[in-house]
C-alpha cells in the first residue's frame, strides 16, 4: 500500500498545463456527495500512499496524500496516539490528502481543534506544475507565509497535495459519554456555564431533546467530570456523528421525514439563541454548529446573518462577502494562474451580498 507516485502526479499536472486541460484533484472521492460538482479530468492521489515518517516522541506524522485515514489511525493507535483533530472520515474511506483539502471538522472541533490546527507542513504541486515544500515537521515554524494551513480547506483549488505532516496527540486514557434529557436551549445554557470550568469535554450532540456529551482524557479527570456534571452514562456512536452516518443526516429516516427540505449547516457563535426546531435540528460544538433541515434558503440566510454566523447546505456553495471572495480569487490565481484546478471552493459563485 506504500507507493511514491509524486513524480507521476507532478508530470500529470505539467501535461495538463501543456495541453491546456483542466483537472479536478480527488482522494478516494468519499466527499463527492456533499460537495458541489466540479469540471475537468480527475486526478486521483489514491495510489500515492504510505507513511513517510513517524516518530511518536516528536508528536508528528508525515504521510502521502493517498494514505487512507484508516491506515494512518491504525499506525497511530499502535503507539497510543491519535490525530490531533477530529475530521469526518466517512467510515474510513477518506484519504489524508482529502481530509486536509476539505478541512472539515467533526464533533470535537471546539476542543481538539480543526484540521488546519494540526497541519504542520505540506509538499504540493501548484498550477505551474512546480513541486513546493512549505512548513515542515516541527511544531513551531514561522518561516514564510503559512501556506500549509492555507491548504487546509482549499478543496484542491490551489494545487495537488502530495505529502502532509500532521501534529498528533496521545490517546485519552478514558472516553466516556454522558447523556441528559434537555431542551436545546437548556443544553446551550449548560455549555455556556461549562465554558468557565476546566473540563475534559471532547464532543457534544443535541437532537430531539437528548443531549450527549463526550468526556475524554486522563482517567482521573474524566471521573471527576462525571461526578461534577451528572447525567446518565451511555454508549454513543461519535464516529457516526462525525461521518454523517446517523439517521438524522438521512432525508428519510426514523427520526423524521424531512421531505423536500435541505440539510443546512449553520456556523454561529455557540451561545447564540436557540430556535426550537425539534426534530429538524441537531446541535454540535457546544452550540457552535447547528444542522437544520429547512426548505427556505432565504429564511436560513436571514436567520444566520442575524446571529452573526454563516450557513452552508450540502451540495451548495456558502456565500462570501465580495471583498473576501475577490481576495480568495486573487490567491487562487497566485497558485494557479491558468485556472487549471477545478474545485468545490466557493469563490466562483457571485452572490448579491
Amino acid at each position: 500500500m506504500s507507493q511514491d507516485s509524486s513524480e507521476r502526479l507532478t508530470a500529470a499536472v505539467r501535461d495538463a498545463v501543456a495541453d491546456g486541460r483542466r483537472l479536478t484533484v480527488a482522494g478516494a472521492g468519499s466527499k463527492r456527495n456533499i460537495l458541489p460538482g466540479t469540471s475537468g479530468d480527475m486526478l486521483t492521489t489514491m495510489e500515492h500512499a504510505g507513511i513517510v515518517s513517524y516518530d511518536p516522541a516528536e508528536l508528528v506524522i508525515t504521510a502521502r496524500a493517498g494514505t487512507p485515514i484508516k491506515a494512518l489511525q491504525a499506525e497511530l493507535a499502535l503507539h497510543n496516539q491519535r490525530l490531533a483533530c477530529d475530521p469526518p472520515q466517512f467510515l474510513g474511506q477518506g484519504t489524508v490528502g482529502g481530509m486536509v483539502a476539505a478541512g472539515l471538522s467533526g464533533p470535537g472541533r471546539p476542543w481538539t481543534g480543526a484540521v488546519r490546527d494540526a497541519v504542520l507542513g505540506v509538499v504540493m504541486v501548484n498550477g505551474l506544475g512546480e513541486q513546493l515544500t512549505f512548513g515542515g515537521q516541527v511544531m513551531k515554524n514561522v518561516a514564510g507565509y503559512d501556506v500549509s494551513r492555507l491548504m487546509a480547506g482549499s478543496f484542491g483549488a490551489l494545487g495537488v497535495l502530495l505529502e502532509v505532516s500532521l501534529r498528533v496527540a496521545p490517546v485519552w486514557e478514558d472516553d466516556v459519554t454522558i447523556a441528559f434529557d434537555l431542551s436545546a436551549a437548556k443544553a446551550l445554557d449548560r455549555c455556556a456555564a461549562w465554558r468557565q470550568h476546566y473540563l475534559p469535554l471532547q464532543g457534544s450532540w443535541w437532537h430531539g431533546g437528548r443531549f450527549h456529551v463526550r468526556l475524554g482524557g486522563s482517567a482521573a479527570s474524566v471521573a471527576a467530570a462525571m461526578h461534577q456534571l451528572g447525567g446518565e452514562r451511555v454508549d454513543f456512536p461519535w464516529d457516526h456523528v462525525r461521518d454523517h452516518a446517523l439517521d438524522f443526516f438521512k432525508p428519510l429516516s426514523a427520526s423524521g421525514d424531512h421531505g423536500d427540505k435541505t440539510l443546512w449547516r449553520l456556523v454561529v457563535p455557540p451561545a447564540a439563541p436557540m430556535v426550537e426546531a425539534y426534530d429538524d435540528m441537531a446541535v454540535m460544538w457546544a452550540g457552535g454548529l447547528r444542522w437544520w433541515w429547512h426548505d427556505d434558503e432565504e429564511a436560513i440566510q436571514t436567520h444566520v446573518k442575524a446571529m452573526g454566523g454563516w450557513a452552508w447546505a450540502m451540495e451548495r456553495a456558502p456565500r462570501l462577502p465580495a471583498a473576501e471572495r475577490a481576495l480568495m480569487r486573487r490567491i487562487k490565481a497566485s497558485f494557479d494562474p491558468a485556472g487549471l484546478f477545478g474545485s468545490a471552493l466557493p469563490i466562483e459563485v457571485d452572490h448579491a451580498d
Partner: protein
Amino acid sequence: MRALKKALPASCLITDGPGLRPYECDGLTAIREAPWLVALPETEAQVAAVLAVCREHGVSVVPRGAGTGLSGGARPHADGVVLGLSRMNRILEIDPANGIARVEPGVRNLAISEAAAEFGLYYAPDPSSQIACSIGGNVAENSGGVHCLKYGLTVHNVLGARVMLMNGEVLELGGPLYDTPGLDLLAVLCGSEGMLGLVLEVTVALLPKPPEVAVLLAAFADVGAAGQAVADIIGAGIIPAGMEMMDRLAVQAAEAFAKAGYPEDAAAILLIELDGSETELARQGAVVERLLSEGGAYQIDVARDADAQARLWKGRKSAFPAVGRIAPDYYCMDGTIPRHRLAEVLTEIDSLSEEYGLQVANVFHAGDGNLHPLILFDANKPGELERTEEMGGRILELCVAVGGTVTGEHGVGVEKLNQMCVQFNGAELSQFFRLKSAWDPDELLNPGKGIPTLTRCGELGGMHVRHGELPFPDLERF
C-alpha cells in the same frame, strides 16, 4: 505630509527627529533606521485615511505594535510611514458565554488575561514579553509562549480578525465561530509579519484556568539525558503545560539574576509545568518524577504553591535580561529542530562557539523543539557584531540541515532573509511573492521584510547550496 496633517490630528503624528528615535528599531536593536514619519491613529477611520494618503503618493507603510519584535519586522524605512497601532488599545468585549474576548490590536497580551480573570478565564499564548507586546503584533508574528506545547500558538487561539488591506478594503474574518467559509485567510494572516494586511481587531479564545498547577525542576549532569527525558515524558502520553530546558550558562546567568534556586552545577535543567485536577496532577506528577529520575536527573524539586512556582518560572522568564547582565550584548536566535536531534545540535553549537570565540547560552522550549541560542558578544569590539551575525546565521542553517526551520516564533523580519534562501528554493519564494501580491499588489505594506528576493538569494547562491543543488538553477546568472 500636508495630506497626512489634514487626515490626522497633530497629536497623532510624529515628524521631528527626537520624537522619531524610539521608532528607529524594534527589539532587534542592532538594525536601525529613522522613519520619515510616525502615524499613531486612534480610530479605524484614521487608519483608512493614512492608507489612502500613502496609496496616493506611493509611500510604504510599516505596521507597528509595541515594538518588541526580535527580527526587525517593524523596522522603518527612511522614506516610509510607521503606522503604530498602540493607541487602538481598547478591550471591546469579554464574552464568557462564548468564551471569547474581542480587542483592538494595541491591547497588550497580558491585559487580555487580566480582564478575563474575573470569569476564571485567560488567553493562553504567553510570550515572555507579554506585559509589553500587543495582540496585533502577536497575530502578525504567530507568537508562542512557554505554554504553547499544550495550548497552542497564536494561530490556534485566534478565532477572528478585522483586517484592512492596503487598498482600504476591510475584511471581517471569522469571529466567535469555529469554522469559516472559503480559504482560511486567518491562517495565512497569522505569522504574516504585517506584510499582508493591518489587524484592526482580534477575537481570541479564552480558556478556563486549570484548577491545580505543579512545577517541577530537574537537574541533569548531561544535556543529552535531559533531552531524552523530554522524549520519554511525551512518549508516556503526557503533554505538560510547559516544558523548558536551559543549559549551564543560561542557568548560571538566570540564577545570578533571579535567585530562583537553580542548581548552578547542572549541565542542563528542565522546568516542567503540569496542570489539571488534583488527582490528575498527583498521578501525572508521579509518572513524570519517575521518568526524570530513571532518565538520570540527580535533583528534582517540586513546587506546589504559587510563590515557589513563580520563583522557578522567574528564572526562566528573565533568562534573556539575565544573559544581558553577564555580557555587554547578546544576540537571540530562534531555530526549531526535531527534538531528537537536540544533543547533536548543541554539540555543533559548541564547536561553532569555539570557532568564533563567542560564548552561547541555550534556552530551549524543549517540548516543541524551539531553540533560542543566545550569543554573547561586545558590540564595541570592532568586528564582533559581524562575527556574531555570521555565527547566528550558521546556527540557523544547522537547524535547517537537521530538518528544522530558521524561525520558530520570532519571525524572519529583516534579520533572517539570508537564511530563508537556505530553507526555500526559487519556486517557493516566487510563490510567496505571488501570494503577497494577491493581498498587496503595489508592495506598499511592510516591503523588504520576510521573504528574500531572488536576486538577494542569487547573490548568496555561491555560499548556500540546498539539497546539493544550486538554489536557482533556472536563473540566467548561473
